């Protein structure tokens, strides 16, 4: 099939800033390649789009691989922020819905799977804080592994294939990070940029002085991840265009709950990724 020139494909040699992330990319590329090869070799007219082969055990694996691939593409697309141009709301809504669908599926798959609670408890609290913070001001998204944020790097050398975001998300202070977020492209909407712009004018420190942000002030990668939004999406992905500032009361326990659940999902995904 002829694809337009310059179509970014998953894992086609895009240079990453962080050397450790390059390793992660390589692994993801390998996975994606395997997925593609499997799909192509398996396609003899017997396989449908969901990758169901005659062998049921294989079908589960290729379904998972496709899900991963779609997940990665979803997030990659959401990140792509075209400077100065408003992206289609329809496209973003469809992407988010697909993302949510995958999230639901992962969640339902992960029910009953044991997660590393210790990691949860230590990272959970800080993650919750960042959740509270991010709910209001982040246009969300992808990728962050709070477990990794704890410096637990050795067992989790993989992050979800969402790393493209990081190169643009330098580890800087919180208020500055707000400004660089649009560049990081989680906020695919230019209004997000302006919401950020508005908010960065505020004395954010005053608002959150009761929250311990010492975690976020280093310039290490982990802090960048910690400061990043939690995944899966549990925050607003597009700002209320008619209202620039939303009250912080919106970040209720509901978000907190979803953050905790999200952490569970993340762990589960880690396991899948590590295994495959």
């Amino acid at each position: 099939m002829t694809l337009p020139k310059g179509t970014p494909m998953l894992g086609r040699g895009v240079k990453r800033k962080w050397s450790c992330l390059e390793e992660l990319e390589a692994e993801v590329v390998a996975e994606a390649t395997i997925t593609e090869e499997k799909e192509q070799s398996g396609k003899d007219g017997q396989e449908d789009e969901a990758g169901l082969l005659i062998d049921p055990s294989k079908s589960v694996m290729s379904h998972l691989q496709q899900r991963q691939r779609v997940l990665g593409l979803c997030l990659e697309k959401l990140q792509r922020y075209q400077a100065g141009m408003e992206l289609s709301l329809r496209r973003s809504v469809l992407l988010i819905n697909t993302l949510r669908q995958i999230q639901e599926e992962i969640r339902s798959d992960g029910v009953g799977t044991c997660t590393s609670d210790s990691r949860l408890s230590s990272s959970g609290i800080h993650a919750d804080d960042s959740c509270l913070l991010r709910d209001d001001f982040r246009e969300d998204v992808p990728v962050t592994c709070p477990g990794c944020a704890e410096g637990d790097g050795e067992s989790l050398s993989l992050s979800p294939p969402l790393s493209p975001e990081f190169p643009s998300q330098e580890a800087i202070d919180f208020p500055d990070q707000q400004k660089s977020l649009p560049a990081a492209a989680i906020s695919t909407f230019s209004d997000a940029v302006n919401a950020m712009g508005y908010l960065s004018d505020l004395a954010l420190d005053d608002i959150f002085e009761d929250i311990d942000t010492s975690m976020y002030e280093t310039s290490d990668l982990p802090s960048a991840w910690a400061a990043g939004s939690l995944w899966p999406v549990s925050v607003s992905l597009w700002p209320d265009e008619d209202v620039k500032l939303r009250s912080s009361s919106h970040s209720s326990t509901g978000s907190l709950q979803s953050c905790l659940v999200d952490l569970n999902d993340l762990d589960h995904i880690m396991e899948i990724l590590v295994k495959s």
Partner: protein
Amino acid sequence: MLSPIQVLCSDITTLSLEPEPFASYTEADIISTVEFNHTGELLATGDKGGRVVIFQREPESQTEPFSQGEYNVYSTFQSHEPEFDYLKSLEIEEKINKIRWLPQQNAAHFLLSTNDKTIKLWKVSERDKRPEGYNLKDEEGRIKDISTVTSLQVPVLKPMDLMVEVTPRRVFANAHTYHINSISVNSDYETYMSADDLRINLWHLDITDRSFNIVDIKPANMEDLTEVITAAEFHPHHCNLFVYSSSKGTLRLCDMREAALCDKHSKLFEEPEDPSARSFFSEIISSVSDVKFSHSGRYLLTRDYLTAKVWDLNMESKPLETYQVHDYLRSKLCSLYENDCIFDKFECAWNGSDSVIMTGAYNNFFRMFDRNTKRDVTLEASRESSKPRAVLKPRRVCAAGGKRRKDDISVDSLDFTKKILHTAWHPNENIIAIAATNNLYIFQDKLNSEMH
């Protein structure tokens, strides 16, 4: 109707920079909308550069009474300019999203053109006479020396070369926060609606500083947003009825008599999802990209990514007919998702008698389905296969690795950059206009020009 189609191309190179094949064109030349007026005499196209080109059909020649007139350029004008929204630091594209003609009420023609944010009403009028014989100025317009004027004369109107003037009559701005995707003129010829992703506004054609919001699907909390409006249209006869489609594949028929804000639909048209066909892309491919009432007002035609559906207004539970436009893409959805083609929005069209529907596809193919005979045809709009007066040859796409006949195209060889998103059908005759990127093709059924 599906007898061979003859090419009736005129000015095929008008919209491209150079007439040679494979020549490069600028992105501004890409045609973004095509629309016949109510008599079919005029055909308007809008492009990404904000320009509108109007073609006029030449009257039938005396020598060949059975040959139909060709379409030639009538007027070209710049409708919209790129703008910058300073508040949001955003560029507003000048691309013309839709053109809709008003029914003709006097010698002039009126059309509405819209980009993402602003709708404009244009008056297209002809001038073929000019006054001559002024007393105070000479033929070139220079003021005469009064001392040379010895007698007075009455200026007379003399014929001149036809001049087409296009003037903006109304500008309807600042009513849409989101991108306008549709406009539709009401059958009362006084009002029209404009729809963006989340809201639909009702305007009076004479009033530009006020519009009424008639549909608002924006959730109180934007986090809860899961559905957007994709297209909207007024009923052709009932001025109180309109329909709008959503990204979730639903259609809502609304009655403006019921309430000022038509958030509650009168009818909801939705086909239950087939659980066995569920995939990650189910929702995306179910998103309706275009909705058109039939000329009779009895049916609705919708287009989603893989199919075109005809709905009966009296039956909400499922479509009356479903036509597979390019089902061979069903197994390629992941790749199409990757290269973003899955988000392409194809339009659809009825013929004048509502017996045939038409829609575009990839590789510059377009498809026509005869609702009565259930026959369908795939044709290609390309420079190579479309010499004037040539007959278009039906094309066929075969599955990869399947049995292949000569001239068949394999799914893997399809060019996904060549997409036919915009097509239009003459209101009475079998003449179709196909926009293929930067080129406009006009085809006609030579054998049978009257509608069945």
